[in-house]
């Protein structure tokens, strides 16, 4: 019983982390058909930005809640700036090229940005633990939960809800849905696809940075954190279905619960869980859980 509830809570926390990391990736893929490796850089920059913000507000003795909001805000601002530079300055030049070539463009950018991090923040690692430690913890039976983890789950849920709501009920969201569904038709109906692309990429970039920011207090912000995240996010998105927001949510939950169950019950298979689940899902449903194969028309 204890184990079962631990698996559930741990799985949920891990899923929240995965969802926040993957949602921006899947959004960009859905709209722009770009598998964005630079997402790892957004994550890393978000984490470094958050660490910087935490440094500023702890030195200034700010209120913790204000500091936390400042941390998220700064990270997302960094994401937005990077997003606009990349989309306007670089991706614009390669739209229309092969999907895979664009993946490589983002891979090249990722490599460059890895060294840029070193140039900006140096090679030492940063701690940004204050928000997590000051949040404290609660004991539920024998389990001790970090309040910060609960905040993480709430943020993930809020992002999921916001994505769902804005896709369904806002004008821009419906525009996006149209573009996801059929790009040519959308363009034919006079939708400014170029603008939609820019906005989408910015949102995706900000979400990537947000992922880094909310994780920064839990981890040591150090070189190379982006690499790990990319493949993990890819796996989640591939499981759920590329471009599907609800897919990312379900994919994150599946991976999160499976991994937590593995750690508690069979720690020796933990290493394979993510890729094992991914391979199994792809074998059964080549396009992921939430994307249907499009029948070929003659």
């Amino acid at each position: 019983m204890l184990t079962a509830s631990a698996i559930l809570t741990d799985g949920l926390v891990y899923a929240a982390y995965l969802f926040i990391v993957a949602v921006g990736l899947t959004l960009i893929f859905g709209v722009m058909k770009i598998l964005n490796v630079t997402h790892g850089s957004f994550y890393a920059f978000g984490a470094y930005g958050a660490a910087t913000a935490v440094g500023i507000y702890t030195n200034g003795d700010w209120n913790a809640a204000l500091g936390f909001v400042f941390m998220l805000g700064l990270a997302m601002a960094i994401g937005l700036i990077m997003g606009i530079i990349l989309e306007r300055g670089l991706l614009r030049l390669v739209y229309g090229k092969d999907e895979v070539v664009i993946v490589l463009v983002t891979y090249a950018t990722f490599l460059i940005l890895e060294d840029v991090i070193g140039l900006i923040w140096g090679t030492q690692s940063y701690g940004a633990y204050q928000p997590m430690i000051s949040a404290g913890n609660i004991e539920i039976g024998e389990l001790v939960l970090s309040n910060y983890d609960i905040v993480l789950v709430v943020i993930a849920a809020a992002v999921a809800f916001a994505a769902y709501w804005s896709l369904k009920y806002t004008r821009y969201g419906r525009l996006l849905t149209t573009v996801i569904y059929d790009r040519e038709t959308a363009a034919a109906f006079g939708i400014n696809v170029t603008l939609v692309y820019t906005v989408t990429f910015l949102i995706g970039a900000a979400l990537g940075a947000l992922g880094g920011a909310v994780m920064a207090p839990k981890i040591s912000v150090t070189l190379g954190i982006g690499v790990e995240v990319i493949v993990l996010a890819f796996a989640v998105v591939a499981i759920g279905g590329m471009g599907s927001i609800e897919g990312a949510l379900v994919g994150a939950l599946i991976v999160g619960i499976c991994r937590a169950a593995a750690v508690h019950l069979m720690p020796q298979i933990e290493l394979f869980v993510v890729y094992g689940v991914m391979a199994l899902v792809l074998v059964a449903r080549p396009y992921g859980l939430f994307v249907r194969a499009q029948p070929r028309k003659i």
Partner: protein
Amino acid sequence: MIKGRTASCWTLAGLAAAAMSLPAHAQTPAPAAAPVKLGIVSFLSGPAASPFGLPGRNGAEIVIEALNAGTAPAPYNKVGFGGTKIEAKYVDEAGSAANVVTDFRNLVQRDQVDAVVGYISSGNCLAVTPVAEELKALTVFYDCGTPRIFEEKARAYVFRPSPHATMDSVGAARYLIAKKKNLTSFSGINQNYAWGQDSWRDFIGAMKVLAPKAEADKILFPKLFAGEFGAEVSTLLTSKSQAVHTSFWNGDLEGFIYQQQARGLDKRMTIIATTGESSIWRLRDKMPDGTIIGGRGPHGPLAPDNAFNKWFSKIYTDRYNVPPTYPSYQMAQSLLGLKLAYEKAATGTAKPTTDQIAAAFKGLVFTGPSGEIKMVLGDGHQGIQETAYGTYRFNKAKKEPEIIDVMRFPAECVNPPPGIDADKWIEGGMKGAKC
């Protein structure tokens, strides 16, 4: 589509020609007063750069500078190596084994270095070793821990003054048992790759010998650089163990410490961090008081209070504004050992040959900032030294990390005797240990 291969072939020809013309400058004979060239290899990028690679590199830089200025304490006070200044070339260790081996060959054959000092990853050390032997290139490993290097085969040109990783796990077990006499259960959380697996194997092996009644409860192997350890912390929280062993380092160690602290794991069990020393200056008051800290040998705050330590710790802190951690000490003692071997081999003003230096290095006994090193294992190529473990405390008055309750274990107590593999020594009950 296949059209035009002709021309592309000419490009290849051009490249081949270019390649042939490249080495011309490298082959010109060195002038008589040429400096001693050293290749220094450590991680300058990636996750291992901050905790190990850069402290190692910085240690090399500061020591080489001091040696060239002749300001190191005796017997290291001769300028450079035997009066000849040292010229160092720093190379990144990052990349695949193929990259690392290629870069090693480039150092030895293109840049014609006299010796290579470096390598943090055990995999890289294993990959470089046969190449070093083949090229007859003097190579000093400074940080990598696997005992396999000298156990698989006798080596002629490869040396490692710093003891191998077995010492760290055996020392941790000895300290834990000394401090917790009625330990009944312990757990382990180690990264799922060679270092983590080896560390745990040695630790649990030593525990079986030293405290046969204590049981291993949770054995966790999260993915390397997993970052998120929520499920692992929960698992440990459900355990009745009194202690948890970890060989985590840097990012994973610090992330684990933050995350477990938010959930109070350290209130329930003692954490034994075998590489904890390399993180105390960043974790500061976030490292829980009472954590058992190791530093892969008697380095940093665990180092003996000798003149070399005072000198090294001062020049390092003056330059980099943080005290040196164990990779810096390991680098320092590797360079100092090499210097002594070089000077022992040198006759007159001529540069000694690689074979002469290797012969002099073999079986060398010397004292550095971390105390005495005896090159006795691996036919005189692998050093042993005493090790130390202690308990962490953050001194709130001085706002500085402290290590208290330090216990020192003599070299022969925590290292296998010559001629027996580390694994077998532990399995066989650690016979011949002199404590």
